[in-house]
Structure formats: structure tokens, C-alpha cells
């Protein structure tokens, strides 16, 4: 009896991760004539759009530490990391469902892959933003180098919500509709296109209890002046989202097969 086990032998994960990353990042680009250049063109296009709007005088929100266009450009890019990670994780069953039904793949590697894809798609435009900021004379704090570490909780939060949404959405699409619209609302209820200080009334209360307020503002503040926004609350949020991510990832991994067999995805 000792010669038997209840589990199948483990597979190589490193090569699988490499191939999945290649597939997720490059398969779409292979369909275009410009290929890799799109990874560079899209962020430049986004920056040019904001420069144009600033030139047209569309954004004049009053006095700020940095030009409003730069503020929004930075904030929306940070938000993009949260949103993309949420979307990637919530669509795991759509992206990989058929593959998972015919191959026994380690689901934690797939989650990790989506995490890395989100990070890569964030850092390419981010490098352009740094270049743009330096060009228009905005000085960056030396602590900008620990920026990726401060970004991590934000990405963990996006992944946690995405994984929970993905599980339930595979069973009933209602959860996708509900959560996608909730995330859109969350953009307005988080200090992305405004600072946490300017809000008043009900919005001020929502912002106060919204963990994204601390996760986004801290990353933005660190980038600009080397400080965390309300450090104690930000660190508490970081701890909470990390625990949430670990719990939900475990829950997702355990239940993947159950969802696949029920839905056939």
C-alpha cells in the first residue's frame, strides 16, 4: 500500500510559465504588422492625448503640486495596473477554460502568469511617463526605485477581486456584469482623477473607507515626494489585501476543477 499515492506527479512549471507569458504577450501582436512596436506606440499615444487636452485648456482644476495632466496620467496608469490585473484574473476561465479542461495545468502558475502580464503591461507605459515627467521638469523622489514594491498590494487587491469574480462568473455571468460595473464606479469613488483632499460630503466618507484611496495615493505620493499617504492606514490596507489575496488564491486553486467540471467553461 505504501507504493501508492493519491496525487499525480508534479510537472515542470518554469517552461510552462515562459510559454504562457509568450502566448499572452505576443500572440495578439503577431496579428499586427507593427508587432512589438505597439507596446511602445500605445503609451506614447496616451501621453500625447493628455498633452493635447492640457494644451486645449480642458483641465484647469486649480493649484496642484504638479500639472493636472501629469497627475491624471500617473494616476490612471496606476489605476490601469489595478484594473488590468482584476480583468486578467476575472477572465482566467474565459482565457484558459478550454485548455484547462483538456490539460492538467497548475492553476497557481496561470494566476502568476496573469499577474506578470499585468505588471509588464504597466511598466512599459510607466517608463514613458518617467521620461515625460523628466522632460517637463517634474523631479522624481529618489525613493521612486521602491515604487514597484509599493505597487504590489494594489496589484494583489486587483487579483483578489478578479479571482473571486472569476470563480462566480464562470457559474453565472451576472457576477461579471455586476463586478465590471462596480469597478467602473470604483474608479469614480477612488482618488484617481482627483486628490483625496478635495472631496467633500458623502464622497469624503466613501473615500475614507475605500482601501484603494490609500493604495493609489501612497504609490502616487511615493513617486512624487517619497512619502506614503497616511502611512499607518496604508500599511494596514497592505496587510489586509495581502491576506485577502492569499486566501482567495487558495480558494480559487482548490475550486478550479469543480468549476470546470460544472460548467465545461
Amino acid at each position, binding site marked *: 500500500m505504501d*507504493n501508492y499515492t493519491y496525487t499525480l*506527479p508534479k510537472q515542470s512549471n518554469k517552461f*510552462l510559465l515562459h*510559454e504562457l507569458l509568450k502566448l499572452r504577450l505576443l500572440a495578439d501582436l503577431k496579428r499586427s504588422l507593427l508587432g512589438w512596436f505597439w507596446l511602445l506606440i500605445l503609451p506614447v499615444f496616451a501621453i500625447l492625448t493628455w498633452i493635447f487636452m492640457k494644451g486645449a485648456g480642458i483641465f484647469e482644476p486649480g493649484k496642484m503640486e504638479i500639472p493636472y495632466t501629469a497627475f491624471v496620467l500617473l494616476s490612471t496608469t496606476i489605476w490601469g495596473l489595478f484594473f488590468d490585473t482584476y480583468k486578467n484574473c476575472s477572465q482566467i476561465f474565459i482565457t484558459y477554460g478550454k485548455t*484547462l479542461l483538456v490539460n492538467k495545468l497548475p492553476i497557481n502558475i496561470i494566476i502568476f502568469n496573469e499577474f506578470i502580464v499585468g505588471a509588464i503591461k504597466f511598466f512599459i507605459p510607466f517608463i514613458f511617463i518617467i521620461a515625460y515627467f523628466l522632460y517637463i521638469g517634474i523631479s522624481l523622489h529618489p525613493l521612486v526605485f521602491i515604487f514597484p514594491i509599493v505597487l504590489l498590494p494594489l496589484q494583489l487587491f486587483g487579483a483578489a477581486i478578479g479571482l473571486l469574480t472569476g470563480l462566480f462568473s464562470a457559474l453565472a455571468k451576472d457576477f461579471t456584469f455586476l463586478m465590471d460595473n462596480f469597478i467602473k464606479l470604483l474608479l469614480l469613488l477612488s482618488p484617481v482623477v482627483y486628490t483625496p483632499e478635495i472631496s467633500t460630503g458623502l464622497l469624503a466618507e466613501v473615500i475614507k473607507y475605500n482601501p484603494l484611496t490609500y493604495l493609489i495615493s501612497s504609490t502616487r505620493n511615493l513617486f512624487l515626494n517619497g512619502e506614503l499617504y497616511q502611512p499607518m492606514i496604508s500599511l494596514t490596507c497592505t496587510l489586509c489585501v495581502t491576506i485577502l489575496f492569499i486566501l482567495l488564491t487558495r480558494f480559487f486553486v482548490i475550486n478550479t476543477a469543480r468549476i470546470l*467540471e460544472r*460548467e465545461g467553461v
Partner: protein
Amino acid sequence: MNIDEVTLTPPPLIKVTGLYKKFCKDRISNMYYGIKDLIIYFFGLKPDYSSLRKNEFWALNDINLKIYEDDIIILAGVNGSGKTSLTRMLTGIYENERGTIKYHKKIKKVISVFAIKSGFNPILTGRENIYLKAAYYGMLRKEVEANMNFIISFSDLGSFIDTPLGKYSSGMKTRLAMSLVLSIKSDILFIDEGFSFSDSKFKIKCYRFLKEEYTKNGRALVIVSHRLMELSHLANRLIVLEKGKIINTTRDVVQGIKDYTIN
């Protein structure tokens, strides 16, 4: 029908005891049970798998089975009899909630092939797809590189190996997929309807290769198929499923096929 309860030495590679799997017939009930079970699991509890709820049915019903070294098994049965469900349970794709599946510790690699062409990307070339699918099968890069010449030669794709897969015919895709599978030294190989789109010449080539590789090498092969006579010369064991139950397991494959087709 005769029931051939096989007891051979050396010990089996896989031992299955009292295996059940239930599914739901109705879409709304399926969504409701799915969400309900997920919430139960969320609180660390386990739903009841011993009985059926409304609109549920047993896809697998008390399966007891042993797979031995050198077994080349045809898993037969009408559509919906539970062949694919059983194979997915044995390969760990479906969750095992009731019953036991035990794998011999000497098993290092188990490969399962469902829908032979799935997992390919039409934008990538044949060669790039080999790397991608090999990664799904848990291979290492160096293993793929060592097997590349065999795959290209066995599939007869020649210079088409560097053409995007979208330009391949169905048969070419099957040849590529099957050549990759055959290049892997797996202890147990499961093939679920893998030869549907390949031409007779390629099929015979595959059958010959499989017979050489999976006879007297301490490995096992399980083929899910409706093409029973075609496979009768390859297989040394037949297992027939009906409504989720094993109704016949025999080593007299030809007689077993006759019994199955008559009944």
C-alpha cells in the same frame, strides 16, 4: 456479459475504488448548485456528495478498476456513458469527491489527450505550437528540443513546420499533435478520440508505434474510441461503460467488441 476481474502481477499502476461523479442536467439548477457549493466550500465545509439533488445524475456510478503495466485498453461505450468523465477523473482534471484513485509511485509522467487539436494557437507556427503544447504536457525545453526531429519527421510536415498553424489542414494539425504526444515517454497515456481526423496511413503508423512503445515496457495506454474494430489489433483489454457503470471488462478484445456491438 462476462466480467473479467483482472488480478495480475506486478501491482497495478492505477487502482480505482468506488468512484462516483455527478453532474446536473438543468442549466438553472447547475448555476444554483454551483454557487451554493462554492459558498459552502468558502466556509470550509463540504457539500454532500453521497446523494443526488433534483436534476442531478450519476455520470460515474461506483467505478472499480485497475490499470496494469502493458495494458492497452479500449474504453468503449455509447455517447454520454461516462468515458471522458472517467478519463478526466483519472488524469486529475476533474475533482475526485467520492471514491479513491491511487497512483503507483513509480509513475513519473501521465499524459492525457482530449480533443487532440485543442491548445494550439493558429497564429503561431507548427514549431512554436510544439513548444506551447509540450509545456502544457509538463515537458522541459530540453526534452522538446531533443524530440523536435522526431516530431517533424513522424508528422511528415517538412518545411510546413515553420508555417502558421492557421494554414494547416485538419489532418496536418492532428499529425502534429499526435507526433508530439508520441514523442513523450509517459508511463500512462490517455487518448480520447485522438485519431478522428487523421488519414488511414498515418493512423496505421501511429498504431504500430503505440504497440511497440506500450507493450512490454511497463507502461499503459488507454484509448477512448468508437472505432473498436480498427483498434482491436492494438488493444489487449476492453472496458465497456454504460450509464456511468462498467458493464464489461475483458482481455478477449475481439469477443468483447462483438458482445458490445450485438447488445
